[in-house]
């Protein structure tokens, strides 16, 4: 499965991580965590539209909307959970604006292509895979 290619933005993000040493990769993840956009007001007022990612120990919520053939992602996670925020931010930046097909074809092992396996516990990486799995299921449900 590892020969599956990542969509362009995720591929760039992955290269950016792999070009760094391990400590700097964590620093980059921290930068991503700061870039997670706030929820738009309409979702802020309707938190029930977001799905909780149960695989993450921190409360992280996501929603994947499909409009005019493009996927739009929104996510929220507490400031006190920067690792989770960082992963959410990578997925939002990497998948937003793609077609539903591109999102559904995104390899499931994105979390393992960032070179963080030693610095981050396996459970956290599983959390990121959980986020991606839920995004895909939402996209599939909204395009079928």
């Amino acid at each position, binding site marked *: 499965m590892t020969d599956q290619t990542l969509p362009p933005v995720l591929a760039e993000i992955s290269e950016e991580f792999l070009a760094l040493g391990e400590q700097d990769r*964590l620093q980059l993840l921290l930068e991503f965590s700061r870039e997670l956009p706030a929820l738009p007001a309409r979702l802020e007022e309707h938190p029930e539209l977001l799905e909780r990612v149960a695989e993450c120990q921190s409360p992280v919520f996501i929603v994947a909307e499909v409009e005019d053939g493009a996927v739009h992602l929104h996510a929220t996670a507490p400031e*006190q959970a920067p690792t989770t925020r960082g992963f959410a931010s990578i997925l939002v930046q990497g998948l937003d604006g793609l077609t539903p097909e591109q999102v559904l074809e995104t390899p499931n092992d994105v979390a393992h292509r960032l070179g963080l396996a030693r*610095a981050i516990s396996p*459970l956290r990486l599983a959390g990121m895979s959980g986020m991606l799995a839920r995004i895909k299921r939402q996209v599939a449900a909204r395009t079928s």
Partner: protein
Amino acid sequence: MPVEIDDSNEKFAAYAHPERLVTTAWLEDHVGSDGLVVVESDEDVLLYEVGHIPGAVKVDWHTELNDPVQRDYIDGAAFARLMARKGIERTDTVVIYGDKNNWWAAYALWVFTLFGHEDVRLLDGGRDAWFAEGRPVTTEKPEPRRTSYPVVERDDTAIRAFKDDVLVHLGNPLIDVRSPEEYSGERTTAPAYPEEGALRAGHIPSARNVPWGMAVAEDGTFKPVVDLEGVYREGAGLSDGDDIVAYCRIGERSSHTWFVLTHLLGFENVRNYDGSWTEWGSAVRVPIATGDQPGDIPSA
């Protein structure tokens, strides 16, 4: 050189070992004292970088306390190197704090104790209390002076239990500190969701379910001794002289309960089974009970 104990707090005075806790106010007064090292230990590997108590060093459970290959903790030589790097002397007072009501801080404290580091304390209320009270924080990382910490071999006999120890222990008090859903074995995950890390669900037969959070008050500090007695003595039936084993999923939440039973309530024989459910729930032919009752120990 150890630092004086925090005797400012009435709640602490009623605990079996009040010297194991400090208040946020005490810590703010003592930060920077000779002989005191403040350690932050979090579940989230990046949280320290977002901001921490000035002068605090970070100790990460996953990359620094666990052996990178084998499922075990680092050995005495690696612990000595870690302490030297963090600027910790063998006689220093170490105050640990962290996220999630000190789960990981308690875990780190327990690991420090495996190596016999004498004076190691928790910040009551943890990271959240410090931040909520608006006390000073920084993103600046200290550059501690390298110390020379002796190589002390880990002692796994007194406060750590392995699977075989637990099998022999059956019949004595066992405390499962996970959530009621994990304890009963009710599956909350659906197909296509990532695996939970154990092949079977449920609990060790005869274990009483006392979720770790029962020891914590609403503001995130430890409950007063009278409330803790209610939870663990009246509620879970523990009594003086008991030989107790606590477990959870990987041993971090049960370190928190180990701290409460050992240092706050004064039980002298408490072990943390760090293999916990991720080992027991995947082991072949060990007894498992499901449902909300402790269940019977199978006869040998």
